[in-house]
């Protein structure tokens, strides 16, 4: 067992962020910048919703991962955890992405505050027209307004201060030879203060950043669900970074035992994420209130590919692959799962943000073309609100839009035919063709072709748009860019101190961490 042979380990504690790595991460960042730029200049037909959603999606996701890294450190320190000590420099480095996330959120907030083109669709509550006429938005405007949005930057700033404080104390500890371990106690105290603040403020921030894109919808579970998502992603990145560092001769004290515990985290919190995701879905599906159901209705009708991909990547694959003990201890298997789950949670954030914004944009189009349109809900400019009323009047039509069709279909179809609106009936029947269409388009077509098609035909509920209904190349490019920037910051911080903490009271415990014997 590794634990018995620690004396023979050759560990290089000094990570060097060399020119090659700098070049790679810089090129990745450049790809992202170009992708964002290209997106901005090609999605003018869609009111720049693709640009704003991509920016928000990746900013929220990677800032969330930085937040989760700080949360990871704090919880373990508060719980007197010791096993994470030998790799605590990795989450420490990751959390220093937070100031960068702050800059990006400042850009988005500036866009919202200055009413830049497209931000009205990104956040319907920042739209003057909606504010004047949409009752639900009017009622929520005390919370959802540009001022409160800017306030989330203060929240992010406070987190950044905690991150800097804990990082500084951790570095000071390296030079602190006193037996009293004063630094450790200070880190412990700051972590304990951070946790309750993080618990409440993260909900505030995630409501503003992500949940409010679906402005008519709300879910009390949402903050936990979204936070669980970035928490799993953070653990995946921690593990992948450790493997990378090991391949360069660092982190040699990281053994199968630490791998096992990180594997248990990825397994356990994937299940936890699913629990929250399903709880949110089940209650809304069962209660069948129009203003709640519209969230899933939209995803079933227009976004089935990402909706089901989300469950596949974040629950089914990690659950069955990591169920056995040995898979959690095998670095290769766990690395594979980490990549799958990381990608999965990126898709999760994609489907949290894109549908709502797309819906806002489509409704704005309907509102401006309402005169010539044959399907009329309510008066002009009341589309969002009018749609809600319909859902309330015809709940049975909404529920029959669910994908299950057994031999009891006669009961459902009856309702669907009686449904008073054309749109809900459409959604019941159009489900399968929509899914097929998505695959066909994803395989066969480029992105620009869609842009023209869609523009020519106007927005239709079943129209597939690359980059909106499924991540396209520009989405991937933007993700690579943010990942590159994230890694650039992480590597820069990692190279700034010894990877092996000194004088931490738990270093030896962590080096000898042992949970399981392979019998």
């Amino acid at each position: 067992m590794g634990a018995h042979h620690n004396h023979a380990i050759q560990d290089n504690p000094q990570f060097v962020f060399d020119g090659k790595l700098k070049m790679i991460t810089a090129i990745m960042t450049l790809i992202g910048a170009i992708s964002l730029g290209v997106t901005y200049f090609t999605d003018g037909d869609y009111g720049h919703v693709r640009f704003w959603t991509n920016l928000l999606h990746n900013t929220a996701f990677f800032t969330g991962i930085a937040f989760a890294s700080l949360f990871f450190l704090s919880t373990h320190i508060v719980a007197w955890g010791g096993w994470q000590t030998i790799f605590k420099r990795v989450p420490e480095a990751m959390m220093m992405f937070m100031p960068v996330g702050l800059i990006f959120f400042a850009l988005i907030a500036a866009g919202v505050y200055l009413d830049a083109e497209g931000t009205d669709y990104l956040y319907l509550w920042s739209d003057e027209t909606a504010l004047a006429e949409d009752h639900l938005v009017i009622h929520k405007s005390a919370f959802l307004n540009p001022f409160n949005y800017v306030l989330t930057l203060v929240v992010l700033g406070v987190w950044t201060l905690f991150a800097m404080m804990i990082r500084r104390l951790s570095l000071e500890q390296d030079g602190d030879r006193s037996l009293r371990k004063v630094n450790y106690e200070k880190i412990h105290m700051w972590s304990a203060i951070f946790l309750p603040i993080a618990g409440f403020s993260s909900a505030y921030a995630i409501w503003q950043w992500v949940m409010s894109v679906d402005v008519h919808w709300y879910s009390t579970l949402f903050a936990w669900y979204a936070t669980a998502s970035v928490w799993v992603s953070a653990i995946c990145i921690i593990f992948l970074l450790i493997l990378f560092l090991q391949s360069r001769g660092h982190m040699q004290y990281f053994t199968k035992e630490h791998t096992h515990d990180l594997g248990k985290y990825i397994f356990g919190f994937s299940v936890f994420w699913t629990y929250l995701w399903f709880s949110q879905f089940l209650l809304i599906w069962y209660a069948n209130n129009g203003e709640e159901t519209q969230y899933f209705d939209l995803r079933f009708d227009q976004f089935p590919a990402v909706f089901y991909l989300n469950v596949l990547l974040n629950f089914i694959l990690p659950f069955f692959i990591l169920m056995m003990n040995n898979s959690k201890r095998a670095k290769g298997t766990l690395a594979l799962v980490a990549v799958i789950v990381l990608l999965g949670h990126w898709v999760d954030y994609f489907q949290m943000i894109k549908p709502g914004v797309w819906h806002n944009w489509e409704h704005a189009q309907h509102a401006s073309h309402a005169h010539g349109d044959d399907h009329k809900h309510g008066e002009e400019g009341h589309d969002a609100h009018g749609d809600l009323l319909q859902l309330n009047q015809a709940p049975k039509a909404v529920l029959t839009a669910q994908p299950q069709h057994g031999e009891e279909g006669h009961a459902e179809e009856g309702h669907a035919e009686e449904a008073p609106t054309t749109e809900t009936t459409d959604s019941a029947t159009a489900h399968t063709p929509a899914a097929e269409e998505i695959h066909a388009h994803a395989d066969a077509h480029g992105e620009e072709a869609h842009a023209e098609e869609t523009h020519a035909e106007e927005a239709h509920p079943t129209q597939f748009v690359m980059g909106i209904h499924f991540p396209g190349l520009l989405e991937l490019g933007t993700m690579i860019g943010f990942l590159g920037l994230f890694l650039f910051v992480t590597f820069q911080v990692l190279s700034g101190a010894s990877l092996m903490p000194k004088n931490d009271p738990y270093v030896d415990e962590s080096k000898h961490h042992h949970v399981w014997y392979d019998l």
Partner: protein
Amino acid sequence: MKQLNKTILYGLYTDEEVLMDAVRDIREEGNEIWDVFTPFPVHGLDPVLGLKESRLHIAGFVYGLFGALTAFGFMTWTLTRDWPIIFGGKPYFSAPSFIPITFEFTVLMAAVGMVVTFYLVCGLGPGVTNPYLDPRITDDHFCVAFDVTNMSEEQRQALEAKLLSTGACEQPKIKNI
């Protein structure tokens, strides 16, 4: 009291580290240890004893699978075949609403099944009084036991000497259980 009809030779130790070394030492010479008793789980004792991985979790998976299929299948049968009822305007076959009960029944079956299996395999259960070698094993002493039922007197003496030389805290004893 249950009878095993075995003759057991056992030695007691007072320290887990001494015990671990003793077990290693004894097994290296090819002696077969019948069992080791400790007052608390000793980390790392299993591989030293050469034990195989427990198959209890495989049983647990089977019970869980049984629970999942039973619950889901039963709800499907009752609500679509036997006595179809519309709940909340949902279709008869409403998979999402089956999930919580399926989940609970899976956990129940896996947990109860594993406990019952464990008790059966270990010969535990209500009303069963198992023989014991020494009451101090449940307090602060560690015990290495040999099955000497079919051994000659010389072999028994050799094992006694081995127990003493590896740090047994008192003269090893023989007990028929």
